[in-house]
C-alpha cells in the first residue's frame, strides 16, 4: 500500500500553473469512465460520474471525458474497455469491483493505455487500484449509533458479504459497543447494492425487531424514507449526503469523494509521471467525507464523534485498535495493536459480540 500525502487545493494550484503556459500537448488527454450503474442511480455510480465531471471542470479543455454507464460486469465489460482503448483513450477508470479481471485482460493488450480499477486488489504495470477506507466513516456512525440507541438494538442493512461490507459492520459495532456495552447488532443481507423495494422491506423488518438506529450499505434513500415515516428511528446517508432527510432521520452521512483522486491521476498522465499504485485513502485525504452531524445528535455524542474524526484524520487513532477478539473468542488484536491492511482487505470474520455468522 502506498499512502499519498496530498491536498486537492495544492494540486489544483499546481495543475493551473503547469497546464496554462505549456499547453504543450496539442491533443487533450482522453479519459474514459466505465460505470456499473446508471449515472443517476443516486449512489455509487452517480458519485463516480459527478467526481469525473468535477475533474473535467478542473482541467477544462485539456481533458476529454468519455463515459459508459450500466456496463454489466463480466464479458461485456471486457468488450467495452477494448473499444474504449481502441478509440484512443489515455486513461480509463473502471469503477466497480467486478471489472477487475476484464481490466487486467484489456490492460495486457494495450500496454500504453493506463487503467485505474476501483476497489480491486490486482495491479499490473499499467493498472492501478484505488479505494476508500469507508470503515473509518463507519466508526463515526457506530459512535453516534451506540450513543443514541435507546432500545440497544442497531440494525444493519448489508449488501453482499464481502470484506468491504464486513469491515463496515465490524467497525461500526466495535465503536457502538464502546459507547454502550449492551448494544446488539442485527444484520440483514440483501444481495444487492441498489433495490429500493428490498431496502424498504429490510428497514421495516429491522424496526419491527426493535432497532432504533439503522445503518445501510446499500445505495438508495428508501431506508431513510421508511425511517422518516416510522419516526423515532435514525439512520445515515450512504455514498451520498442524502441531505433531504436532515435533521432526522439522517443524522450524518458517509460521502464518497473521488474527485481529488481523479484530478491527481489525470494530472500524472499529463505530466508523464503516472505509475501503477495501490491507493487506499480515508478521512485524512478527503476520499471519505463525513456529512454534517445534525442537531438531533446529543452534544456529548456529537463531540465524541467529531473527536474521533479528528483523531482518525491526524493518524493518532485507528478504528481497529486492540484489544479485539474474533467472534469465536480467539484473540485478533492484542492491547494497543492496530489492524494491518492485509487483514482488513480480506476481512471475512465478525468481531466478538456480533451475533449470527457471515453468510456463504
Amino acid at each position, binding site marked *: 500500500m502506498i499512502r499519498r500525502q496530498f491536498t486537492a487545493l495544492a494540486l489544483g494550484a499546481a495543475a493551473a500553473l503547469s497546464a496554462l503556459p505549456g499547453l504543450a500537448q496539442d491533443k487533450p488527454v482522453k479519459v*474514459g469512465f466505465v460505470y456499473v450503474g*446508471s449515472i443517476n442511480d443516486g449512489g455509487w455510480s452517480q458519485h463516480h460520474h459527478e467526481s469525473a465531471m468535477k475533474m473535467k471542470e478542473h482541467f477544462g479543455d485539456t481533458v476529454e471525458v*468519455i*463515459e*459508459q*454507464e*450500466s456496463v*454489466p*460486469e*463480466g*464479458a*461485456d465489460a*471486457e*468488450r*467495452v474497455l*477494448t*473499444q*474504449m482503448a*481502441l*478509440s*484512443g483513450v489515455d486513461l480509463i477508470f473502471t469503477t466497480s*469491483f*467486478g471489472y477487475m*479481471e476484464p481490466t487486467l*485482460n484489456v490492460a495486457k493488450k494495450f500496454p500504453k493505455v493506463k487503467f485505474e480499477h476501483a476497489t480491486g*486488489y490486482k495491479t499490473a504495470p499499467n493498472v492501478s487500484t484505488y479505494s476508500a477506507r469507508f470503515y473509518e466513516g463507519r466508526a463515526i456512525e457506530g459512535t453516534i449509533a451506540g450513543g443514541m440507541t435507546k432500545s440497544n438494538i442497531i440494525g444493519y442493512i448489508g449488501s*453482499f*458479504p*464481502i*470484506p468491504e461490507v464486513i469491515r463496515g459492520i465490524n467497525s461500526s459495532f466495535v465503536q457502538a459497543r464502546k459507547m454502550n456495552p449492551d448494544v446488539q447488532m442485527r444484520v440483514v443481507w440483501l*444481495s444487492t447494492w441498489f433495490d429500493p423495494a428490498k431496502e424498504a422491506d429490510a428497514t421495516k423488518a429491522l424496526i419491527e425487531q426493535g432497532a432504533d438506529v439503522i445503518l445501510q450499505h446499500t445505495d438508495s434513500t428508501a431506508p431513510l424514507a421508511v425511517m422518516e415515516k416510522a419516526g423515532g428511528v435514525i439512520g445515515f446517508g450512504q455514498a451520498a449526503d442524502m441531505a433531504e432527510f436532515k435533521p432526522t432521520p439522517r443524522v450524518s452521512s458517509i460521502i464518497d469523494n473521488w474527485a481529488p483522486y481523479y484530478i491527481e491521476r489525470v494530472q500524472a498522465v499529463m505530466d508523464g509521471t503516472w505509475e501503477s499504485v495501490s491507493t487506499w485513502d480515508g478521512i485524512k485525504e478527503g476520499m471519505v467525507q463525513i456529512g454534517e452531524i445534525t442537531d438531533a445528535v446529543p452534544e456529548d455524542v456529537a463531540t465524541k464523534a467529531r473527536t474521533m474524526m479528528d483523531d482518525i484524520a491526524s493518524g493518532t487513532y485507528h478504528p481497529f485498535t486492540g484489544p479485539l477478539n474474533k467472534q469465536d473468542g480467539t484473540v485478533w488484536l492484542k492491547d494497543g495493536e492496530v489492524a494491518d491492511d492485509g487483514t482488513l*482487505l*480480506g*476481512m*471475512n470474520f465478525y468481531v466478538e459480540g456480533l451475533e449470527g455468522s457471515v*453468510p*456463504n
Partner: protein
Amino acid sequence: MIRLEKRPTPSKMWTYLTPIVAVLLTMIAGGLMFAALGKNPVEAIRTIFYDPLFNEQFAAYSRPQLLVKAAPLILIAIGLSLGFRAGVWNIGAEGQYIIGAVVGGGVGLAFYPSGSPLIFPLMIVAGGIGGWAWAMIPGLLRVWFNTSEILVSLLLVYVAEQILASMSLGLMRNPEGGGFPGSRNFQQWDAVANVELIPGTGMHWGVVAAFLAVIGAYVLLAKHVLGYQIRLTGAAPRAARFAGVSPSRLILTCMGISGALAGLAGLFELTGPAGQISIDFNSGYGFTAIIVAFLGRLHPVGILLAGLLMALTYIGGELAQFMLSVPAAAIQAFQGMLLFFLLAVDVLTNYRIRLARTDTKTGAA
C-alpha cells in the same frame, strides 16, 4: 377509413419483408429519438450499424466480437424457437443459462487444477444437463399438474439468480480470491479455457455450437418426424393429437432441448468471455434470446441473422454511448423499438390493409 382484412394465408412476401421494414422503421424512429436528444441522428445510426463492421479503428476487433456476442443469443433462441413453434412457452432460459454454467463450472472446479483434456468435454455435458434439468421443472409440472410453464420457468429465473449469488459467495468462491465473491477464473485454467479457435475471428466453441444448433434445427424441422410434430402441433394442436403426437412428450422434449441449449450457452460463456461464476454472471442473454427468436421468425436461418443483428445493436450501441455520449437507456429504447416495429409490421403478414370508404349506415357507430 383504414380497415384490416385477414389474408386467407399468411403473405410469403411480407414474412420476409417484415424484419427489413422493421429495421428501417427503427432507424427512422430511433433517428428521431437521437435527434430529440440533441445528437446527430445520421451519425448515431452510422455508429450503431456501420462502425462496428467497417470503421478502421474498431472493425478488426468489433467484427469478431459480433460472433462472440451473438453466439449465446443464437444458441438459446434456437432452442426456444422449437418450443415456441409448438406452443410451449419457455420464458426462463435465463435461469437455465445460469444453472448450466453453475453445474458445468462446478463439475470443472471439482477437478481443479487437473490438466486433463477430458475435463472440458465433461463440463460441456454437465452444463447441458444442468440447463436441461432446470427446464424439466416447469416441464414436468406442466405435464403432471397442468401448471403454466410461462410462470414457473420465469419465476425459476429468480431462484437460479439466488443460487448463483450463493455459489459465488460460498461453495464456488475462489479460495485464493482474498475473500471476494466469484469463482476461479476459467480463462486462466488452460485445460478448460474456451479460447478463440482461430486467432482474430472470435470463433470459440460456443460459436461453433451455435452454428451447429442452427444447422441441426434446420434439418430437424425440415426432415425429422419430431420437427413435423412440432410444426403440426403449433399449427393445429387437435389435429396433432389425432395424428398420434403425445402432447406431454412434446412439451418435455421442447423444454428439454431449449433448457439444454441454454445451459450450454451458459457453460461456453463461463469458460470463455465471462471467465468466472460471479453474482452478475447472467447478463440477460436468456431474455434477449426471446426477442431474437421472434425477430428471426422462429426460423433457424432467421435466428442466425437476428442474433447477429441484435449483437450489432449492442456493440454499436456501446460505441454510440461513449463516442457520442448517447445515454444507455436510449440504446435500450432503440432495441425495444426493433421488437415493437417487428410485431407491428408483422400484422401485414396476416392482414391486408384496405382503404375503404366509410359506409354511412353501418359506419356511424
